C-alpha cells in the first residue's frame, strides 16, 4: 500500500508541477457553445435531461494557487497518460511468496490508518479531466477566479478546529484521526461519518452539490416530469426529488439532502436547495447552507452542471464550481449499503475492546 501511495503521490506531484507551468489555452465563451445547440425536448417544451451520467473525473475541486483554469490539450493528455500508466502498474502481478505486511502497520496514511486499504482494482476513479466548452479544466471551482474555495469565516474556522479535536458524524473520512489519536470518536455510532453509517454517500456524491467520487460508483440518473425531477445517485442509493415551481418547505423541516425546488430559466434547469439538516455539513457548512444548481444540456451526450454554494456562517463569500456530466450507457446497480456493513460494528467493537484493555491495565 505504501508503495502504491508513493507512486500515486509521485504521479500527482508531477501533475501539480505541470499545472504550475501551463500556458492558457485559447478561450471559448460558454454562451457561444450552449446557445448554438437545440436540445431534444419533452412534450412540455423543456429540454429532456433524462439519462444516466458518469461523473467520474480526475479534475479536483480546487487547483494549485496561481495556475490557470484551462489545461492545454498536450498537458492534459500527458497527465491522463500518466494516470493510465499508474493503473497499469497496479494491475501487475506481485510476489506470490510474499510474507505478511509489517507488524506495527504498513505506514499508509490518512483513511488507510496504517493498515492499507484494498487492491486498486476495486477502484474506478475518473481517468480524464472534465471538459467544459471544449476545454480541459484543472479545477471544478470557477469562482473565485483563482479556483480556490474562499476563506472560512471565523465561526467556520472554529467549527472545523472543533471537528479535528472531537470528530463527529459529519467529519470527513479522509481526516479520520485513528483509534489511538481520538479514541472517543469510535465509541458511538452517532459520531461516525454519515458515509460509514450508510446514511449518505461519502464526499458529497449525492449532494447537493453532487460531486465526483474519486474512488468509484460515479453514476447518476435523472428522471424528469413536468412536476418533478428525480436525481438518483448510485452511492448509498440516494434519490433526491426536485419539486418544480414549488415553494420551499417551512424552515422547521430539515432533511439530509435538503429541500430542493426547481424552475426553468430558458433551457437551463435551476434547482434551489435549503432546509439542510445540521448533520449534513457539506465541507463543514451549517444548516444555513444554500445551494443553487444549474443543469444545461450542451450536446447530445453531455450536461453542464454548475453549482453555487452560499453559507455566510461558513464562508466569507459564495463560490461556484462546474463540470461536465457525460452520458453513459453503463448500468446503475443497487447499493444496499447496510447489507454487509460489518465495518461499522467492527469499528465500534474495536473501540470497546480497547477501553476494556485499558481499564484492565489501570486496575492492575
Amino acid at each position, binding site marked *: 500500500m505504501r508503495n502504491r501511495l508513493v507512486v500515486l*503521490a*509521485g504521479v*500527482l*506531484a508531477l501533475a*501539480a*508541477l505541470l499545472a504550475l507551468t501551463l500556458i492558457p489555452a485559447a478561450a471559448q465563451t460558454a454562451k457561444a457553445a450552449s446557445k448554438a445547440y437545440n436540445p431534444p425536448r419533452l412534450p412540455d417544451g423543456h429540454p429532456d435531461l433524462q439519462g444516466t451520467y458518469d461523473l467520474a473525473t480526475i479534475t479536483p*475541486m480546487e*487547483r494549485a494557487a496561481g495556475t490557470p483554469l484551462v489545461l492545454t490539450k498536450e498537458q492534459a493528455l500527458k497527465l491522463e497518460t500518466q494516470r493510465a500508466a499508474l*493503473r*497499469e502498474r*497496479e*494491475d501487475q*502481478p*506481485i510476489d506470490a511468496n*510474499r510474507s*505478511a*505486511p509489517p*507488524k506495527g*502497520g*504498513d505506514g499508509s496514511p*490518512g*483513511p*488507510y*490508518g496504517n*493498515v*492499507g*486499504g*484494498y*487492491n486498486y*482494482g*476495486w477502484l*474506478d476513479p*475518473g*481517468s*480524464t479531466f472534465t471538459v467544459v466548452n471544449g476545454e480541459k479544466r484543472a*479545477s471544478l471551482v470557477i469562482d473565485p477566479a483563482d479556483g480556490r474555495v474562499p476563506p472560512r469565516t471565523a465561526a467556520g474556522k472554529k467549527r472545523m478546529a472543533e471537528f479535528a479535536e472531537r470528530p463527529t458524524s459529519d467529519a470527513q*473520512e*479522509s481526516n479520520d484521526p*485513528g483509534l489511538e489519536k481520538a479514541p472517543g*470518536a469510535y465509541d458511538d455510532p452517532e459520531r461516525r461519518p454519515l*458515509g*460509514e453509517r450508510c446514511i449518505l454517500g*461519502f*464526499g458529497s456524491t449525492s449532494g447537493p452539490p453532487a460531486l465526483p467520487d*474519486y*474512488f*468509484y*460508483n460515479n453514476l447518476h440518473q435523472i428522471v424528469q416530469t413536468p412536476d418533478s425531477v428525480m436525481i438518483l445517485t448510485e452511492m448509498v442509493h440516494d434519490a433526491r426529488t426536485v419539486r418544480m415551481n414549488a415553494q420551499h418547505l417551512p424552515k422547521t423541516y430539515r432533511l439530509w439532502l435538503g429541500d430542493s425546488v426547481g424552475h426553468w430559466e430558458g433551457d437551463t434547469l435551476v434547482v434551489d436547495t435549503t432546509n439542510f439538516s445540521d448533520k449534513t455539513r457539506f465541507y463543514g457548512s451549517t444548516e444555513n447552507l444554500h445551494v443553487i444548481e444549474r443543469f444545461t444540456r450542451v450536446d447530445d451526450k453531455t450536461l453542464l452542471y454548475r453549482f453555487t454554494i452560499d453559507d455566510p456562517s461558513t464562508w466569507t463569500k459564495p463560490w461556484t464550481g462546474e463540470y461536465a456530466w457525460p452520458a453513459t450507457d*453503463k448500468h446503475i*446497480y443497487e*447499493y444496499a*449499503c447496510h447489507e*454487509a456493513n*460489518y*465495518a461499522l460494528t*467492527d469499528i465500534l*467493537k474495536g*473501540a470497546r*475492546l*480497547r477501553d476494556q484493555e485499558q481499564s484492565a491495565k489501570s486496575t492492575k
Partner: protein
Amino acid sequence: MPTRFLTLVLGAAAALLTASLPAAAHHAFGAEFDASRPVLLKGRIVKVEWVNPHTWIHVEIVKPDGSKEVWMVEGGSPNSLLRRGATKNSFPVGTEVVVDGYQARDHSELRANARNVTFTDGRKLFLGSTGTGAPPEDSFPADKAVTPSK
C-alpha cells in the same frame, strides 16, 4: 535529478495534494483493523459476499496442526467490478488465493482487510478499469483474472 530538487518537488507536491485532493474512503480502516496483527492467508475461497458497502471473501485456511479456519477478508464495493463483467461467480468456490492484510481489532473475529488478493502465482484477482474506454459490461478479461489458479 539532484536530491534536494527532488525533495523540493515532492514537498511542493505533497502540499498541493493536501490542498486539492478530496481523498475519501468509505470507513476508518485504522479503527477497524489492528496494525499489530499482520496476517498472510493462503487458502481456498469458500464463499463470496458480493455486496455493499464492501465485498467480503471467505477463505478457508489449513493451519500447521491440520485444523481449518475460515477467514473473512474485506474488499471494495462490487459495483464497478460488476460493470466490468465480474460477478461473485467469477471467483468460484475452491479458487486458491493468497491474501495479505491486518486482522480486525476484535481478535475473536477471523476478519482482515485484504490489502492484496492474488492467485497463487501472484496475479491480482481484481484488475483496474481504464476509465474511459473501459471494457464493456460482460467482458471481464477471463484470461487475466477470472481463471482460478491450478
